[in-house]
């Protein structure tokens, strides 16, 4: 059997499509420039911090990564809600939820890794059972499950609806997990890590670099998500085209 694939709808030919392509490229270039600038400022320009030394340089990427992860899950949950709402049901919200959650999982992984790199010299261990760390790890696994559910082959409508419910169920779980884990920790022996001993004052060039980190990582998120979204749209179009081609073929055989 030969599968004739109709060309994917290339919307870059239309006026709004061209604008979209340009906008995504501008965001990508800005994200790249922002990250390069953050690295330069973070590694060379900003001073060492009292009590933290060079470790403070992780500050410019770790909180922005965590912020992007939470932003991505927020967007995914909102898009899932819009998909489940009958009036706003459209496959673009399903794609948006999937694309956003994918980027969120990547940034959650990066948050965990950069947090562990920070933890080793600061606390003497890669992992502590801190509520925030533990909840982030559980969050990571929760959304890995969500992505696994999305990847299951099946009727796109069915998978999209289930994925939307799963995204909301997971989102509701996050505060309960955080609450229960922090309570669990507070009942155990007093924290062995002294967070209060050393204060970190973020000032001057450090504050600007941190702000730039937040902005450029957010731009990275937008850029990555736009591309994942486009890929999802093309995949959907490919599947639709493949289906209509197969139907045409059967008709031709019957005729």
């Amino acid at each position: 059997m030969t599968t004739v694939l109709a060309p994917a709808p290339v919307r870059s030919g239309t006026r709004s499509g061209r604008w979209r392509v340009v906008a995504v490229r501008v965001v990508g270039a800005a994200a790249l420039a922002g990250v390069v600038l953050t690295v330069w400022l973070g590694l060379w320009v900003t001073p060492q911090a009292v009590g933290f030394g060079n470790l403070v340089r992780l500050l410019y990427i770790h909180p922005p990564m965590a912020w992007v992860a939470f932003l991505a899950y927020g967007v995914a949950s909102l898009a899932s809600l819009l998909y489940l709402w009958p009036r706003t049901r459209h496959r673009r919200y399903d794609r948006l939820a999937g694309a956003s959650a994918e980027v969120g999982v990547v940034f959650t992984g990066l948050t965990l890794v950069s947090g562990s790199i920070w933890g080793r010299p600061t606390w003497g261990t890669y992992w502590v059972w801190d509520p925030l760390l533990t909840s982030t790890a559980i969050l990571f696994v929760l959304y890995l499950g969500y992505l696994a559910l999305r990847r299951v082959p099946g009727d796109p409508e069915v998978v999209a609806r289930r994925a939307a419910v799963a995204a909301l169920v997971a989102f509701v779980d996050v505060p309960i997990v955080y609450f229960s884990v922090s309570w669990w920790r507070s009942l155990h022996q007093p924290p062995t890590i002294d967070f209060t001993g050393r204060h970190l004052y973020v000032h001057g060039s450090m504050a600007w670099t941190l702000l730039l980190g937040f902005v450029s990582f957010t731009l990275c998120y937008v850029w990555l998500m736009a591309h994942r979204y486009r890929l999802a749209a093309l995949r959907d179009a490919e599947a639709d085209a493949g289906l209509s081609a197969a139907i045409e073929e059967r008709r031709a055989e019957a005729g």
Partner: protein
Amino acid sequence: MLHDAALVCGKDLRIELRSRVALNQVVPFAVAVLVLFGLALGPDRAVLAPAAAGLFWVAVLLSAVLAVQRSFAVESADDARDGLRLSGLDPAGIFLGKAAAVGAELLVLEGVLTIGVALLYGARLQGGLVLAGACLAATAGLAGVGILYGAMSTGLRVKETLLPLLLVPLVTPVLLGATKAWDEALAGTPSRAGGWLLLLAVFAVLYLAIGTVAFGPLLEDA
């Protein structure tokens, strides 16, 4: 809705009474898990007794995955799911009924495992009211989330591997809450378990409510 729930629950429990799959397979599996924990941690009761609550609930959690899979395997044979869908029963009732049946099976299992931790790990059973309360609330939460996710992964080709991945991280609060409540009860300070019981109850009510609302759309496209 409640009448439909009772019908579905009765049907599932009758199937279980006649097939005895949970009794002959899930309960022995859970007991084997308890024995394996004992082997992994060593025979020292000073180590095993303080860990009893956690090990008990991990064993319950693993068995809950099996019980939920069984609950939907029953529906997949002979296209029984279509029959259920066409029966005109309220989807919320079907959800609550299936959750109640799985919950009842898990409660029996927890009874067996309670004797198991007392015998194998030397846990001193006290604070019975807290132990039972934690079992009830945690089981309601586990069964609710389990049936919700069971419906979500039913009809998919990879349901056996997908369900545990979806279910286990989500019920972390149940594992924590139930373990801590049991810890307090077994340590002889059941009055300090109140907050954990409340957490379990909130989790159960929340997910039973979500399941009641979301089960209809999920069942339709199964």
